[in-house]
Each structure stands twice: as C-alpha cells, then as structure tokens.
C-alpha cells in the first residue's frame, strides 16, 4: 500500500508543504490510492491546480485531475469554474474545501459559513456562503459528490468513481483547516456529516438539489450522476456532426 502511494509521489524529493494535521495530506493519499486502483499510469495523468480544458482537447487519452481550493476556484477563479461547468469536458475537479483562505492567513473565503470571524471581516462573514455543489448542480454538472478528507475508504471510492466517470465531475472534499478555521473543526464536521442513505436515487436531479442546499447538515456521498450528456471534446472532434449541422441550419 505504501508503494502504491509512493508511485505518484515525485521521484525527486518535493517536500509536502502543508501544515501537520492538514486534511490535504489524507486527501492526497486518497487520490493516489484511487489512481492506483484504477490502473492509471502516472504518465497518463495530469494534475493541475487551475482549470484548463485545452489539455483535454489536445489529448483525449489523458486523465485530468484538477485540485483546487474554495478560494482559488469559487473565489478568484469563480468565472473559470462556472464556464468549465457549462462546457462539460471529461475532467475531475477535487475541491479542498476548508471554508477559509489560508495561504494569506485566514481571511473569510467564499465558502465560509455565515458569521465566521476572520481578520479581514472582524465582525463575521455576513454573506451567503458559497456552496460549490449548489452551483455545480444548477449548472447541470453530470457528476457531483461530497466527501470528508478523514474518511479514507469512502472518499477514495468516491474519487475513483469520479475519475472513471466520463464527464465533468465535481468532488467537494470537506477538510478542516487545523490552523485558521476554529469553527469548522473536526468536531464540527463530525456533528454535521452523514452519508446519503443507500436508497438515494443518483439520477434525481431535484432531490440532489434539495440535499445540497439544506443548510443544517452536510450530507456526503454521490449526489448525482447523469450518463447522457455530451462531452466538450466529443463536440469539438465531431465538428461536422450531422445532428449539429441540422440544428444550426437556418
């Protein structure tokens, strides 16, 4: 198991610069395990920290996994996030969601729960918090899931399913920021989370929406998967698709 984890680590020593106790460490292990179990070779994998569909357009064999935070993506990169959602390329987006901006020392982030106190918002984050799943759902993303970094087995399975899925997959991973977020802590997450019931119908878009927008609990699991959808790279390569030509004939 250690070997499988190691094969995706950089062959030269690249120090992992996350804080001790940060959920990102566990999440990375989960991603590595998922990739190994899917038999994806490192040379066919591209990991990015910003959305770039051009890669998928230029080489369809590649597996593209994008890792980002809730301020990099819905914050400064919000526009790229929503446009990637509508285009639907076969990429997997994994959001490290710790509900606070940390590399700049704990300002409120778009996913901060309301009334979070942060240095640049001393009296509490008063905005509606940004729910990546809510927007992904309304934007018709075909695969939507939420996991908890601490639950290795379930989260790994979820990431596997997302990567194997053909289409734009969004996996929101709740991970406590051990340094800066003193509200959304491990204990807080433990109280809030529960896995979706076995009977949850992953084809029911409206049910998924209701579950994603309910604010009291944080349900985990695959909310939604929709198989019949067209990929951006398919559309791009079938430029002379007869159906499309018919649609645009005027």
């Amino acid at each position, binding site marked *: 198991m250690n070997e499988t984890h190691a094969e995706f680590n950089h062959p030269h020593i690249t120090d992992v610069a996350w804080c*001790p106790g940060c959920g990102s460490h566990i999440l990375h292990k989960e991603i590595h395990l998922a990739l190994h179990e899917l038999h994806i070779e490192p040379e066919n994998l591209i990991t990015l920290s910003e959305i770039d569909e051009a890669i998928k357009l230029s080489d369809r064999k590649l597996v593209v996994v994008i890792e980002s935070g809730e301020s990099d993506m819905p914050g400064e990169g919000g526009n790229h996030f929503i446009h990637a959602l509508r285009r639907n390329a076969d990429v997997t987006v994994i959001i490290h969601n710790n509900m606070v901006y940390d590399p700049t020392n704990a300002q*409120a982030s778009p996913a901060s729960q309301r009334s979070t106190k942060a240095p640049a918002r001393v009296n509490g984050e008063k905005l509606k918090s940004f729910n990546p799943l809510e927007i992904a759902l309304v934007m018709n993303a075909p695969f939507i899931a939420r996991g908890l970094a601490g639950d290795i087995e379930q989260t790994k399975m979820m990431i596997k399913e997302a990567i194997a899925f053909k289409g734009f997959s969004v996996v929101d991973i709740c991970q406590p920021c051990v340094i800066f977020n003193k509200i959304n802590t491990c204990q807080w997450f433990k109280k809030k989370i529960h896995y979706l019931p076995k009977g949850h119908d992953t084809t029911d878009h409206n049910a998924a929406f209701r579950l994603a927008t309910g604010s009291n609990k944080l349900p985990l699991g695959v909310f939604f998967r929709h198989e019949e959808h067209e990929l951006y790279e398919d559309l791009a390569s079938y430029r002379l698709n007869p159906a499309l030509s018919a649609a645009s004939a005027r």
Partner: protein
Amino acid sequence: MTDTKKTTRQVNVTSKTSVSVLFAGDSGDGMQLTGTQFANTVAVHGTELNTFPNFPSEIRAPAGTIAGVSGFQLQFSSKPVYTPGARFDVMVAMNSAALKANLKNLHRGGIIIAGTEGFDEKNLKLAGYPEGANPLHDGSLDNYIVFPVPILQLTREALKESGLSSKEVDRCKNMFVLGLLYWLYTLPLEGTMETLYAKFQKNVWMAEANIRAMKAGYFFGDETELFANLGRFDISPHKQHGIYRRVTGNEACAIALTAASKKAGLELFLGSYPITPATEILQTLAKKKKYGVKTFQAEDEIAGIVSSIGAAYGGALAATNTSGPGLALKTEALGLAVILEIPLVIINVQRGGPSTGLPTKPEQSDLFMAMYGRHGEAPLPVIAACSPVDCFYATYEAARIAIEHMTPVICLSDGYLALSSEPWEVESPENLAEIKPRFQPAREASAPPYLPYKRDERQVRSWAIPGTKGLEHRIGGLEKQNETGNVSHDPENHELMTKLRAEKIDLIAESIPLQSIDNGQLKGDLLVLGWGSTYGAIKTAVEQAIEQGLSVAHAHLRYIHPFPKNLKEILGNYKQVMIPELNNGQLVHIIRDTFLIAPVSLTKVQGVPFNEMEILTKITDLLKELKS
C-alpha cells in the same frame, strides 16, 4: 517585581551602543512572537530599534528543514538605527537548520545560543548536515562563542507541575529563550507579563505557565556558570521623552488612509483581495470600523480596484492594496481611473517576481509597472515609502495628491517595510497637511450646464458626486470631449485630452517639496540616490563613508513621478551618481532617460534587503576609481 532585578552572584554588566540579534528556529517554534515581544520591551525601554521578520512562504513548511526556518532580526541601539544590522551579534538557533541557514550572517566572534534538542540526529539530517557531523561538537564553530542550552528539557522541567499537556508545555520553550535574552540584556520582564495576562485573560493558568517558562530562562542565565565569563549587557535608552507606538509598514499604511479620510472629511473605502505581503492593510482596516471605515473583501483583484473606483465616484476616499501579481490584474481598471480622473490610492507592497515569484520576500521590481504598466498614454503619480514609519507619511501624501489633483496615485512599499517595525512618536493631528477635496456645488436649473471636464489652473477637474442637484452627468472609459465630457472620437480632441491629462500630473511638481539631501555635502564626488526601502542600508553606509572622510552624499526619492523640480540640479552637483536598487536597475533607466546622465547601478535581486556593507564597499570602490 524586584526578583528579576536581584542577582545571586555578581555578574559584570557591560555597556554597548548597538546589538543586532536574530531569533531563528522552525516556523512552529514561535520565533516571530518571541522577536515581537523582545522588540516591544526594547521599544518601551526607550532604545532605538529596527526589526525585520523573515519567514517562509508556506504556512508550515516541513519541520526541521532549511525551508521551514523562520527568523526575526532586530537591532537596538543607543543611537538611531535604520537597518536590522548588516550582520548579527547574537543568534538564537532553536535547531540545526536555523543555524545552517543563518550562520553566514553572524559576526565572527558572535554569540550562538543553541537549543540542543534541535541538534539531534534527526534534526541534523533534516538540515542536511553530513552523517555524524554536529556543528556543536565538531569544532566548526570555533570562531564563535557557543552556548548549548537544553532549552526544551529546561522548559519541561520548569513546567512539570503546570497541569499543561506535554504539547502545550513544549510550546512554551520560546518563552524560556525570551527570558534568557532579557537577562542577558538587563531588560525587564514586566511588559511581556502584562501582555501574556491580557492575551490569556480567560486562561490565566496559560499566562502563568508562559511566565514561569520565561522566568526559568531568566534565572537560568542568572544562576548557572554558563554566562559568567560573558557577563550581561546594557544598551542605554536614547529616545526623548514622549508617547510612542511601534508600527509595521502595513499598519502605518492603514492608519494613514484612515487619517487622510478624517482630515479630508470623507468616508474611507478599501476594496481589496488577500495577497501576501499586502494583506495586513486590509486586516488592519477591517478592524477600524469604529472610525467608520468600510472595507470590502472582493472576489478578485479586479473587483477590488473597480469597487474602489465606484466608491470614489460616490465621493469616498477610495483605496486598494495589493502586491505585484495583483497590480498586474488591476492595470486595465487603473487606466479607467486615469481617464475618469477620479481620486484613488493604490498601495503596492512589492514582492519578488515575476508571476508568483517570491511571495514573502521584498523586491523593488514593480517600479516600471507602476510608472508605465497601463495601456494607452496613462501617466499617474508614483511615490515611495522608505521606512515602516514612512509608510504612514507616504500613504497620507498619496491620498492628499489623489484627492487634490483628482488622479489615481500609486504608493510603493515592499515586503521588507510591510512587516518590519520601528518606534513612532505619536503624531498629532495638527501636524498633518490639510486635504481639501474640490467638490462641485449644486447647480440651479437656470445656471449654465455643468462641465465635468472643465479644469482649474492646475488642470484639475472638479469632483461632482451623485446626490448633488443639477450636476447629473455621464462619464466613462471612452475618450471624452474637452470640458463637456461627452463621448468624442475627434482626432484633435483625443490628442488634446492626452496632453491635458499628462500636464495635470506634471504640474503636481509645483506643489510638492523640493528634493533634499539626506546626508553629506551639497556638492561632492558621489551622490548615492535611492528610493524605497533601501533607505536604511544607504543611510548607514553613507554615514560610515562620511566618517571615513569620503566625499559622499545621500538623497532619497519620495516622488518618482513627477520628480521634484530641483532634482536635475542636484544630480549635476556631483561627479558621479550611484543608484542601489533591489531590482535589475529600473530607476537607473528612468533617471538616464529623464536627465540624460549615466548613473552607476548597484543591484541585488535575491529577495533580501541590501546590507550596509554591500553599499559601503561599492562607494569605496567607486571613489577609488574616480580618484585614479
């Protein structure tokens, strides 16, 4: 508190003028806190002071490695000091990486206080020492005075009955070091004790544990034989009687914006996005709501500046703060502010670039971007701060120029000024320049139509804010007809407007102070011309050169665009001009371009400030060349 004053044995106390100390350890060792506390105590003591925190860009880089070393350097003195010291006299090294990373900057014969637990096999390996080597024992430190102290063990010993968890106990080890240094420099513990009680109001036992660790460090110095030969030191106070506060550059910027808004009678609005090393300006202002300050943490850098333009249009003193990558994103909006001709302050806290570059390290490489980084002909005033306290005066001046000349102004700081601190004698409101916004009064229906781009003798238009009756007008980014402000594509009009906008900026030179000589004769062999945070290093180097009898002077630019009117004359009074910069020679280009002279360039692009020795050496070399 008398127990910290009495000593059990007679230990010699030697007077010294200046000492530079470095606290270095892993970024989890609490060195920034220790340094800050030490600096506070020294400041309250009335000693002259300059500090420089230096930490890695990752919040927690791997423990024990060179990349994870966090340092806090300070120089304190009984005469004015302008830098944290070219080299330090004393280094606290909590682990082997801290020693390895900083040894080259320790004076020969300097003191090392080493936490021995940080020199075990694991730590030595993480720091990259060869197997079996330990600098504490292998003679490699023979040129220094080394005090190996089992800091962790002694802290644990002191707190064994504190009831704290072992993790909490271990975190108090920095207080032990602090206590030891207080003993070494005959400084009182009371200030830090007060701070700890205030900080741990709800957990008094935590304050008491920290104090116990600090006292343990103090008494360790007092009671062991270890420091008997070295003795203790005393740096006598220098500051005049008065009320002081200690500020970092970023805090000073935030205070200045608030002060300018009060003085001008405007509301302050800051639209901003978190970015290292500028974020503390947003954080400090977010806490200033009791002064009516409005801060807006926007979704990105562009929204940060554009929201400020909206607020400025509404009649607020509007500002945005950022660092290089953010300024790059804001450039289109800056062009809008230029053509709208509205007041706006942009504080750019420079860091190493390009791109993400060196986020926590200072550089002066955004000068070109500040001067020219916009599309079209879009000149604007550029001014620079030269010390943490000067960040206040530079930012205040930026706000004054913005409001009185209806223009965006870029105020340059950098990562060194932003985080460094120095004592500041509390300023009184009367000493601050008046700031007079030129609001357009309401217009009667019978009066001639309002002309938004009609100018006064300084080519400045008036500020007509919404809510003022009779002044309804439309402005935008499209070129506008002279005076009326209506959209115009007329070729001659565009040229006229371009020249008017440039002339307005040039005319600011009429109302700013003339350039002065900071130190040295008004005529001579060499002028060292600086800008920004190189002030301290240049000042110290030129002082030493003058002491050596060299014909050198120092001038430091606050106004880079427009230049003070007498700058040309000053430059002509010296045989040679030398410009030290933390970039590849940007001011040299601008000076050469403006005055057709050929200054000598001294550059450093290493993400660290100049030290005075580097500048002094260059001065000496240049003067030798001139003589021969």
